[in-house]
């Protein structure tokens, strides 16, 4: 599918170009913007970005594939990332993953047949004192999880609720959900 920047992304791109002495430096920030717009980095979008920056498509792919945050495959609508590094492991992240696998009928690394959920095991999310933690897409962060909360979060997401609204509220409250 052909890709080009939305007006908003174009605006951000033009602004980014003014912030660095070399336009290569715009690459990572603009890939973030593209991914937040279309949910992943399709081959077409990377080729388009390469063209706009005067880089080879291979260079863009080389960079995108180095960083774990960039998704080169299409994932579920909700990507559930569970931290599995030391502090979260000590506070039960294995049980959280097992619970998600049981609730969604998929293994970590897989996407559900309805395209709604992907489970990913990720490394440290820098919230070790409120372990275990899970991040939904790049906008919702759940701390001090237990199995009951995991069930609630999945139920809300299945109803199309939860997500960004919860995050905003939690931030406004200045604390943990």
């Amino acid at each position, binding site marked *: 599918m052909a890709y080009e920047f939305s007006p908003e992304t174009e605006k951000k791109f033009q602004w980014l170009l003014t*912030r*660095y*002495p*070399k336009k*290569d*430096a*715009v*690459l*990572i*920030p603009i*890939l*973030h913007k593209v991914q937040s717009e279309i949910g992943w980095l399709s081959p077409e979008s990377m080729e388009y970005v390469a063209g706009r920056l005067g880089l080879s498509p291979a260079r863009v792919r*080389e*960079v995108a594939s*180095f*960083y*774990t*945050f*960039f998704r080169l495959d299409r994932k579920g609508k909700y990507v559930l990332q569970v931290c*599995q*590094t*030391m*502090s979260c*492991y*000590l*506070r039960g992240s294995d049980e959280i993953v097992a619970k998600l696998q049981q609730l969604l009928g998929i293994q970590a690394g897989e996407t559900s047949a309805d395209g709604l959920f992907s489970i990913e095991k990720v*490394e*440290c*999310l*820098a*919230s*070790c*004192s*409120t*372990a275990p933690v899970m*991040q939904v897409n*790049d*906008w919702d*962060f759940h*701390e001090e999880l237990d199995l009951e909360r995991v069930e609630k979060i999945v139920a809300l997401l299945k109803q199309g609720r939860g997500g960004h609204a919860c*995050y905003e509220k*939690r*931030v406004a409250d*200045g*604390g*943990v959900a």
Partner: protein
Amino acid sequence: MAQKLRPAHPLETRVLLQGFDEPSSWTIDVYEKKLGGYAGARKAVAMAPDAIITEVKNSGLRGLGGAGFPAGMKWSFIPKNSGKPVYLVCNADEGEPGTFKDRQIMEHMPHRLVDGMISAASAIGSETGYIYVRCELRLAIERLEKAIEEAYAKGYLGKNIFGSGRNFDLTVHPGAGSYICGEETALIESLEGDRGQPRLKPPFPAVSGAFGCPTVVNNVATLANVPGILLNGAEWFLKLGQNTPRSAGTFVYSVSGDVKNPGFYELPLGTNLNVLLNEVCGGPLPGRKFKACYPGGSSSPLLTADEFDVKMDFDSLAAKGTMLGSGAVIVLDDRRSIPEVCMRTARFYAHESCGQCVPCREGTKWTYLMIKRLVKGEGTQADIDKALQACANMAGKTICVLSDACAMPVTSMIKKFRAEFEALARPASEVTPAVPKVSGQLAELMAAVRERQTR
């Protein structure tokens, strides 16, 4: 996203976290009017650059990202009048497992970082700064961007800041999920739009850093300390710690794992680990005993519970064969199997190795696989020694210290808890040798080689 706000523990001295519990502490109004913010930056732009560097040198401020290199000295390496622009980069790629201090500063006190960056930029003659932030720290990014916008609107960033004739532009640059980008030359590669692979040094960034120009890379907490030092003087900062240039100021310790009250605590640098864990953090979980801890993030060699009587500063921990690193204490209690902990530690580094140096790319992976074999009950005594050998063969033999960061904790765990590893080992006769399954021509070739070896 935000951590629970709680009042300071009686033993805490909040300097970096001063004003942390004010409502809307992240806005310029609160930071400036209630907390007296930007007075440091105002003073700095009017000072001679050398005077700022001297004050910071005298204060004993060290790099708080893990290495502990004296900040004032790092700044003094920037060549004068090189004719090239100088860049100031804030390393906010907080990725060391167990560490979450910078996140607190950025989420709750973003203006203190901006304040510090203006001061540091004045010292090194930089007109352009970047804050390289982990992209996962979404709230930190939002609040920093908002803070920068507010500072531009007030004339504290941009052209002729504070009417001083100096210019300083500041931009938030998101990382993209890579532990190694916390290494300063990898961070610079990433900032320039490349894969985050560390560079050979020299040249050091002070000579040739971002975009081929002189560059200073400093951690969030290091920079956020600068306004306080300029306002209150080097003497004040020295006394916050242990009144020596090697242990000055406060330190925000991040405590996590098997402890009653995990969290971040700002204490004098050099607070005793026992005091931190038992008094400030409330001791072990009910019915449990401490077994060991990483004192400085998952890269630091483990301390056993009987080694906890140690000052948490750079030199005291080095004397114990470990390190302060990022000051992230991860506590393990008596339920924990050290080989399991070891396997997960090695897995992290195997995942995060950038792959450019063979000893690290292969060493971290094979260390992980050998420990995993033991944990799964498929390993032998020989695997324990081979893992130690793999660690010895990668540490100090690569461009950056990621291989050391894997080798140090793994080696310490095997040395201090060897009996636990040996208990998992099985006799070689019971274990299927780890020979890959092959067929066809390759199998014939391997059989021929084996035959030649036995002849």
